[in-house]
């Protein structure tokens, strides 16, 4: 087991820069999740760590050793691919033991390492089947088992659950979390499912267009996003964005105009803002309070439909300027009768971003 460190790592495909000067330290035993939209470079970065893609510039160390130019075989890394990449012509037993057999270990040695892993992953009964005779979840377990058998220093996963149905995904997610707790191998996990990221990660790395947008614990990112991008990416349902214009400033406060001609006072950020500047106020669905009557500073929302999930209900609608809004509501379902709801925003719960999407407070 070992930690790893990326220092100013970049990857160019011809003239395209897929990864741009990424630096990151992963502690020994940590579970780090890379998230980001499609094409942001998650797989590329993971494959660079594995050694499957060359590192154009920068350095990578694993367990303190520089492995920037080391062959993948010598990095002691195991990877689970999205497609599982099980060897189709070998049985489960053959798949699990392949690396060991290739390393010329004896039959007894191979069995001694394969059997406990198979038992731990409940594969004992399937050992003589071919991958084509397994269910998606079982294949997933074989792929994990194949990686575990080699006792790697670092475990890499590239969207391992995305081929499974919703129920199995939740189940495998729990199993993965328990597995990591039990064996504690340093793990890097790529996903674009933010729920997976939130539930599995010790720390989340949000990537965007080849750069790291923010790194932090799941709750850090949730409670304190440094950019509108991260605020929008973490949290489900998505955070609400409200376009606003600065109308006046004084020593303590910023006066904003929100859609529907609503005046709204917000604590003044450090950055100097002038009247006329556009900003974005972002607030999570659960931090909105709704009422059927207008209150001072409340903004009107036209409700389009409701989703009642029992304990919680969601209202979907639009502000006067057409921006989409989602409201999370508990108790008192009777307000779902109203066409227009008035939303009040607690300033301390709302994040303010400048026009470029940078956090202001």
């Amino acid at each position, binding site marked *: 087991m070992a930690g790893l460190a990326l220092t100013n790592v970049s990857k160019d495909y011809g003239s395209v820069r897929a990864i741009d000067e990424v630096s990151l330290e992963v502690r020994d035993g940590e579970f780090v999740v890379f998230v980001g939209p499609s094409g942001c470079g998650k797989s590329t970065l993971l494959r660079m760590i594995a*050694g499957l893609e060359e590192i154009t510039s920068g350095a990578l160390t694993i367990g303190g050793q520089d492995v920037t130019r080391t062959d993948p075989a010598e990095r002691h890394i195991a990877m689970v*691919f999205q497609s599982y990449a099980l*060897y189709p*012509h070998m049985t489960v037993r053959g798949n699990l033991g392949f690396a060991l057999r290739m390393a010329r270990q004896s039959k007894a040695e191979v069995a001694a390492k394969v059997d406990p892993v198979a038992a731990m992953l409940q594969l004992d009964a399937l050992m003589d089947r071919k991958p084509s005779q397994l269910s998606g979840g079982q294949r997933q377990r074989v792929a994990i088992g194949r990686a575990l058998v080699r006792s790697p220093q670092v475990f890499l996963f590239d969207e391992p659950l995305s081929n499974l149905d919703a129920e199995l995904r939740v189940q495998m997610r729990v199993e993965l979390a328990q597995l990591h707790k039990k064996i504690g191998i340093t793990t890097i996990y790529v996903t674009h499912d933010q729920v997976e990221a939130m539930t599995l990660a010790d720390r989340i790395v949000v990537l965007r267009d080849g750069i790291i947008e923010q790194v932090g614990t799941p709750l850090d990112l949730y409670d304190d996003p440094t950019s509108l991008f991260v605020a929008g990416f973490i949290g489900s349902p998505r955070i609400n964005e409200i376009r606003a214009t600065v109308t006046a400033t004084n020593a303590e406060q910023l006066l904003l105009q929100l859609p529907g001609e609503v005046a709204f006072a917000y604590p003044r950020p450090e950055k100097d803002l002038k009247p006329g500047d556009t900003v974005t106020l972002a607030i999570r669905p659960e931090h909105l309070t709704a009422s059927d009557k207008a209150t001072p500073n409340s903004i009107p929302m036209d409700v389009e439909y409701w989703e009642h999930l029992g304990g919680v209900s969601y209202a979907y609608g639009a502000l006067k300027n057409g921006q989409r809004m989602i409201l999370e509501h508990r108790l008192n379902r009777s307000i779902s009768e109203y066409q227009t709801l008035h939303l009040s925003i607690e300033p301390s719960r709302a994040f303010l971003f400048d026009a470029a999407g940078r956090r202001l407070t």
Partner: protein
Amino acid sequence: MIRVPAITRRLATAFLTALALVWMVPVLMMLAVAFTPPEKRVTGFGGLVVEEVSLRNFGIVFADAPILHHLLNSLVITLSSVFFVVLFGAMAAYAFARMRVRGKNIWFFLLITTLMLPVPTLIVPLFQINKSLGILDTYLGLILPYTALGLPFAIIILRGFFEALPRELEEAARLDGVSQPRIFWFIALPLSWPALSVVVIFQFMTSFNEFVLALVTLDSDSLKPLSLVPLIYSGQFFTQPGAMFATLTLITVPVVVFYFAMQRFMIGGLTTGAVKG
């Protein structure tokens, strides 16, 4: 699946059946003459109607000509060329598909152009090469040219197949610490049996049936393959058409048997390659 109206399908079937029947006429004639007793000179209806079935022609052939010996010659030459084509073809195709080779595209283009040369134009040069190598009138004089002639097709088929294999399988093996040659041997090769079987069948058929090069290369009757047998014994069997046709019948047997044994793989292999690109 494309849906075809039933009437079109029936017409197509009828047409193909008629075509197949016409195609079968020479084969049927050959069988008819071969199975007609030797003393009966004329068979009915241009040889298509057999009045009396007899195996005596085959008896004459086996008594007068060492058919099994020639079959052995054919097998030695054919199987050797199949072995070398599969071995070298697979290695070359894998390099083309997966490895960095200087001037890869030019090499590949050259390989494809060799497919455009008609074999008869190669006879004289091949004869000269064999002569200067001192392998005229030896098995090698056929095994090497057959291998060389078979390689381009094999490489093209196998390259396409290797390229279509999921890259992640080989990447997984690389992370498992497996070297490139062993990835080829333990992962890529076992997974490409559909393409390999196409190559094996094709190479087997062309080598087994090849005639012109064998004719100019081999002098000693004892080395000659089955395809030359009718020629060797044409004088001897000139007055015995029954024996001649029995010989021809015997020659076709190994190819037909081989084809039926491998047909399943052949069809599977061709379509697998096609679907995967």
